[in-house]
């Protein structure tokens, strides 16, 4: 007869195998608090810049005719790209039953939700009248006017809101059992929070069956959504008549680039988590190694797409396209272009391809250069096409960002870090039920390889 008696500690853990995974939720160090303060400061500064820009007008930025889109749209595409790290990768791994995925999925899915939220803010930041952003939403209103469903920006609205819903659910549903565990092992406000979020999860066999089925089915749908989202983002550009934007390859090119930058972000964040939360036992070199192989594939795919995109433009030699093309290859934007090639291909390719260099440190270096390179890639897609002379009119403008644009961009980087820190403080960042307890392994020690009865 063991009457239930949760201990009086804020959160008490049975000395079980899940303890190391619940520990990040318990222990809050000084460095964490300092980091939160620092990041909050950076975010507040970015918010201030945004509000300031709202009062002064977008003239504050470096944008001028004909460069109507630049930094913010670059950030938008970049973050939406990062968001493909999570749900897409995790869904693919889930559907293909890759057993090494267990410690990776939660971290990846969280990236998706936060990156998508951050990316979704940028179209609003970039609006001339951001306080009217809700006019893009289709809802019955007193003005009796609806948005224009033919605009690619409207497609963005639908695609991003669908993807955000899907990926938030895809993060949330597999977390239910862990939330229930946290509920059972905590007290006070945490208990109330987890009790709410756990949605009365008990772990009945009926619930397990349904949940696993739902995750499996949603994985299939979420892949279809994720692919469509970045395709639609790319269509913002390729539907326009701007030369060098108007390209049929942009759909798959953007999706590949998104997965590319997404995996890089995932590797980087996993390396940080591993170091900060001492999760070496769970995030093992083999996980990094497998992700690095995926990243290598994407490096090659990216290189292929850039080559295909460039050579068709160059060979076609259309007068409208060439100014933007040459400005990238040898003109005003050439340093950025070649830096992008360096960051996205020349540096990461050997690191990822040569087994001796494919250490965690090497992968982190490759991931950082890839993230920089992919940001440059987005910038080089957006700006040169708009900035160079198009058609017959002599109209060009050398864009240079204003400090508010840079501040807002950096603030979103800080926002990503802060959201991730808060998330990992409140929720188990590694799926406990997936990793710790694979049935039936009653006395498994440490991390066991998933048993036959594990999750699909």
């Amino acid at each position, binding site marked *: 007869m063991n009457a239930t008696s949760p201990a009086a500690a804020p959160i008490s853990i049975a000395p079980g195998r899940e303890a190391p995974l619940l520990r990040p939720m318990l222990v809050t160090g000084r460095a964490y608090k300092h980091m939160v303060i620092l990041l909050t400061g950076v975010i507040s500064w970015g918010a201030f810049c945004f509000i300031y820009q709202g009062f002064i007008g977008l003239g504050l930025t470096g944008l001028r005719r004909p460069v109507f889109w630049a930094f913010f749209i670059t950030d938008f595409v970049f973050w939406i790209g990062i968001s493909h790290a999570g749900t897409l990768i995790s869904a693919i791994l889930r559907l293909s039953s890759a057993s090494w995925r267990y410690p990776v999925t939660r971290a990846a899915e969280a990236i998706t939700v936060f990156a998508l939220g951050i990316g979704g803010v940028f179209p609003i930041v970039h609006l001339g009248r951001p306080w009217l952003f809700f006019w893009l939403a289709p809802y019955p209103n007193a003005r009796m*006017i609806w948005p224009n469903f033919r605009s690619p920006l409207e497609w963005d609205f639908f695609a991003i809101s669908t993807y955000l819903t899907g990926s938030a659910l895809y993060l949330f549903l597999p977390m239910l059992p862990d939330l229930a565990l946290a509920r059972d092992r905590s007290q006070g406000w945490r208990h109330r929070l987890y009790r709410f979020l756990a949605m009365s999860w008990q772990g009945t066999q009926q619930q397990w069956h349904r949940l696993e089925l739902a995750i499996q089915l949603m994985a299939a749908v979420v892949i279809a959504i994720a692919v469509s989202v970045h395709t639609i983002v790319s269509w913002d550009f390729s539907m326009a008549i701007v030369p060098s934007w108007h390209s049929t390859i942009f759909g798959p090119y953007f999706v590949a680039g998104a997965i590319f930058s997404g995996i890089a972000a995932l590797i980087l964040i996993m390396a940080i988590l591993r170091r900060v939360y001492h999760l070496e036992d769970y995030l093992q070199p083999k996980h990094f190694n497998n992700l690095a192989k995926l990243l290598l594939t994407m490096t090659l795919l990216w290189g292929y797409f850039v080559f295909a995109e460039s050579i068709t433009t160059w060979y076609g030699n259309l007068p409208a396209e060439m100014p933007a093309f040459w400005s990238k290859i040898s003109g005003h934007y050439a340093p950025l272009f070649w830096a992008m090639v360096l960051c996205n291909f020349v540096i990461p390719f050997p690191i990822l391809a040569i087994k001796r260099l494919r250490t965690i440190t090497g992968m982190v270096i490759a991931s950082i250069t890839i993230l920089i390179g992919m940001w440059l890639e987005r910038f080089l897609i957006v700006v040169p096409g708009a900035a160079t002379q198009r058609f017959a009119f002599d109209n060009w403008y050398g864009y240079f960002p204003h400090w508010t644009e840079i501040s807002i961009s950096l603030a979103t980087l800080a926002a990503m870090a802060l959201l991730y820190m808060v998330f990992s403080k409140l929720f188990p960042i590694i799926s406990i039920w997936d990793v710790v307890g694979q049935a039936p392994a009653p006395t498994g020690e440490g991390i066991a390889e998933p048993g036959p009865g594990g999750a699909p």
Partner: protein
Amino acid sequence: MDESPIRRIQPTRWKYALAAAVLAALGVYSRVRPAAPDQPVAFAHSVHLKAGVKCAGCHRDAASSPQAGLPGVKECALCHAKIRTESPAVRQVLAYARRGEEIPWQRVYSFPASAYVRFRHDMHVRGGIACSTCHGDLRQAGTARVWKPFNMGVCLTCHREHGAGTECEQCHY
């Protein structure tokens, strides 16, 4: 392995349903009736209309210009030199007139600049739209108040009914 004692399960909690209901109620309660602004003089539309003064008697530009127009204080004084001089409101008006000062009427209907909208009284009057369609029956009213919420949906509904055209640039330019 052990057995737990008999435990009671608390019933389903209703506070979530309650919170949702409150939110829904707040959503429904979104139409806030705009109040009438405080006017310097308690002008009584009812008295004037019942005495036989027509709308256009005072708002004389309604048929010919975008604005309906307000009479100046001298015009008020012209009639009120003899009529009901004992009423406190009229005395206020006469005091303004003596000082040669216009009455600082407060605007009742106005559009924010960001609406970029131009309402033309003349086209509506000439089209045979009664004043009361938008301003209500002022025979019962004192100082004017916003009688009809004048958002774009109201304009559009009426425009569609009368076949008055719904091109954006008719009003927004």
